[in-house]
């Protein structure tokens, strides 16, 4: 009995050691970035304030909702390009619910989430029932959802004046911003789903070897369906939170958000070929991208140049891991 206990605790240590070892490249990258922003004279004063920290976390939150879903989608060997447009559509629908139809805020929010889930369900149905590549399916829904957002709003933002509306995106629970509290909840749910459930094990099986999963009696189409539906829900959450923070539902919201989410996942070490990846890596990936955005803003770097820097850093982070894996 004592022996098995020590095996257990050594396994735990092995687990966290393995996490450190596998993600060493990006952990170092993150620490370097953080320390640099903390000591570099032009950013040092603004950077370390709690206001700024919460601000960054708030921004990272919406990206991480998406990235949680995206991690699962990519582990399945798929991709979801429609998450950015889903942000816009769900945000507009929820905002319009309050502003145009005077619905109670929770009802409007749920309405926004339902729209997002429907997009996910549509993606999931087509991808699980046909052999059309996820890239194509979600490219189509990306355009459809964006178009619907423009059509529905006539192209202009849907403003919400209600003070309560801002709670979910710009408010606080105790000292902590609401989106961060939601984030913690989302992360816990996603991590449990991926690591502790049968569903999670089956997901890795489908992504790692679909044919073997069939022989294993795993319902491949069911797993795919639920993963895309869950990603839809998380995009809707991002959409509602964003619409709340901006006091309005904007049809242009979330443009390019899918790329930031994919970047966080890939920088976090999840393989695009499917079957492997961990939520811990994605979190660090999102932190790197978030703090990088923040640092560039604090340094007053021209926003056009920010794209160039961001792309370069993504490439560097992945390149470090490539070098480390090659030497194995």
């Amino acid at each position, binding site marked *: 009995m004592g022996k*098995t206990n020590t095996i257990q605790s050594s396994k735990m240590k092995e687990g966290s050691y393995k996490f450190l070892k596998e993600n060493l490249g990006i952990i170092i990258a993150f620490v370097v970035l953080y320390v640099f922003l903390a000591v570099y004279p032009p950013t040092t004063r603004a950077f370390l304030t709690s206001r700024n920290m919460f601000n960054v976390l708030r921004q990272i939150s919406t990206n991480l909702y998406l990235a949680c879903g995206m991690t699962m989608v990519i582990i399945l060997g798929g991709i979801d390009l429609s998450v950015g447009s889903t942000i816009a559509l769900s945000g507009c629908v929820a905002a319009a619910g309050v502003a145009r139809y005077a619905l109670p805020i929770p009802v409007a929010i749920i309405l926004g989430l339902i729209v997002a889930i429907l997009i996910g369900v549509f993606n999931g149905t087509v991808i699980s029932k046909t052999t059309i590549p996820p890239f194509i399916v979600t490219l189509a829904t990306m355009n459809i959802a964006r178009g619907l957002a423009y059509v529905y709003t006539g192209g202009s933002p849907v403003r919400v004046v209600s003070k309560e509306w801002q709670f979910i995106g710009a408010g606080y629970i105790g000292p902590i911003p609401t989106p961060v509290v939601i984030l913690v909840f989302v992360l816990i749910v996603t991590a449990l789903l991926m690591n502790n459930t049968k569903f999670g094990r089956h997901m890795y099986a489908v992504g790692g070897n679909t044919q073997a999963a069939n022989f*294993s009696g795993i*319902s491949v189409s069911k797993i795919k369906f639920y993963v895309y539906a869950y990603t839809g829900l998380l995009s809707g959450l991002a959409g509602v939170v964003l619409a709340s923070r901006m006091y309005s539902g904007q049809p242009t919201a979330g443009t390019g958000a899918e790329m930031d989410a994919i970047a966080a996942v890939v920088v976090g070490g999840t393989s695009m070929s499917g*079957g492997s990846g961990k939520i811990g890596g994605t979190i660090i990936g999102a932190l790197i991208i978030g703090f990088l955005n923040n640092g560039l803003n604090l340094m007053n770097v021209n926003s056009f140049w920010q794209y160039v820097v961001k792309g370069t850093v993504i490439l560097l982070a992945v390149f470090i891991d490539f070098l480390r894996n090659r030497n194995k």
Partner: protein
Amino acid sequence: MDNEVLLKMKNVHKQFPGVYALKDISFELRRGEVHALLGENGAGKSTLIKVLGGIYAANEGEIFIEGNKVNIQNVLQAQQNGIAIIHQELVLVPYMSVAENIYLGREPMKGIIVNKDKMNNDAKKLLVDYNLDFEPTTLIKNLSIAQQQMVEIIKAISFNSKILVMDEPTSSISDKEVDFLFSIMRTLQEKGVGIIYISHKMSELNEICDRVTVLRDGEYVGTKVVSETTKEELINMMVGRQLSKYYTRNYLEVGKTILSCNHLCDNNMVKDVSFEVKEREIVGFAGLVGAGRSETVKCLFGLTKDYSGDIVFLGDKKHYINAKQALKDGISLVPEDRKKEGLYLIQSVEYNTTIEVLSEFIKGIRLNKKKEGEITQEYIDLMDTKTPSLRQTVGNLSGGNQQKVLIGRWLATKPKLLILDEPTRGVDVGAKAEIYSIMNELVKEGLSIIMISSELPEIINMSDRVYVFAHGYVKGCLNHTELTQKNIMHLAAE
């Protein structure tokens, strides 16, 4: 001149982190010789070949070709020294023609344009030289596996290779094609090419090989002239112990019928198949590749959606449309192709062992890691799988151990009927003998087994009864007392 030494590898050492893969190996290949390299999976054959082919650099050791010391650091240098390797997995471009594949990367040019006529003519000449009857313009994807292998060989020859390494070339081709392959190998021998031949099929040694070198656990065991040794001696050299019995089988009183299938038909490969399985019985499915055996068990296991016929399992009529239903009733299928259909290669031994029995240690979101470890350990012990830890990535294990992990996974479901599709394909002799003895034990404990196998000795020595398949039909059923190669082949070739 005939016995001139073409290649000499001297005192080669290769270490990987934690593994001593090659310990002081010496190896010699003569001109015009076919030299077999024998050993269990993990014995160091592939590592030695990879050192020769420039894929791995040896830590120590020297390589001489025709008496001159050479330095092989990468694949290009190996090629320049006249070494060509034909890998088990063929590496041709499917959507390019035969000629384009042969001259890939060194196409004859006319200015900046590829000289297609010259390329096709040169390729045609090579094909004719070796009696190959397909055109240089044929696309690779339209060739059979055996023909593709021939293209690989031609490609190697066109580099003027003096040393040809063939890694299990006969594992996926038919007997007739094997004969043709051997005739080509003999032509090469006459031209003075030295061939290093890796195979698990002992029966081929007498037919084609001159000498054989045995490796075990990364060490050199010995070199024998094939005509002066016996199969038993070689097996003992490979395994390092007297294998008292290769096949372990106690024939028991069989029980009542647990499964009967009548007139199964999948509108494709399975035309009309009826058979039954009794308690404590090993039922063999014999036949040639493509006879419909794997397809039959796929119907039974619910992997084929559209099939007709009656299945009665444990007294109840069944019609499975997915594997989950079959599993629930106590049927398990260990698939034919363990890499494609069975294992999650990038996952751990633990993950692979427990994927079918998650309910035993996952309740909702409560994961009992300890229980998972115990289950895994139980089946590692049962199958005697050699793995450094439960966390080891399955893809890094040897073929025999991968197969043991896979069989362990399906045994963990505690099936009443276990279907094994080619259970010992690509598995070394030691692991084979172990798998046979485990099958024997399982049957003693009340399990019934269906074993599909293309290896007749295995079918003959392990089965209580054998159904012989041909062209989607069952051609006959033989009792274990009637089992001879002749009887089986007579039915299979009908």
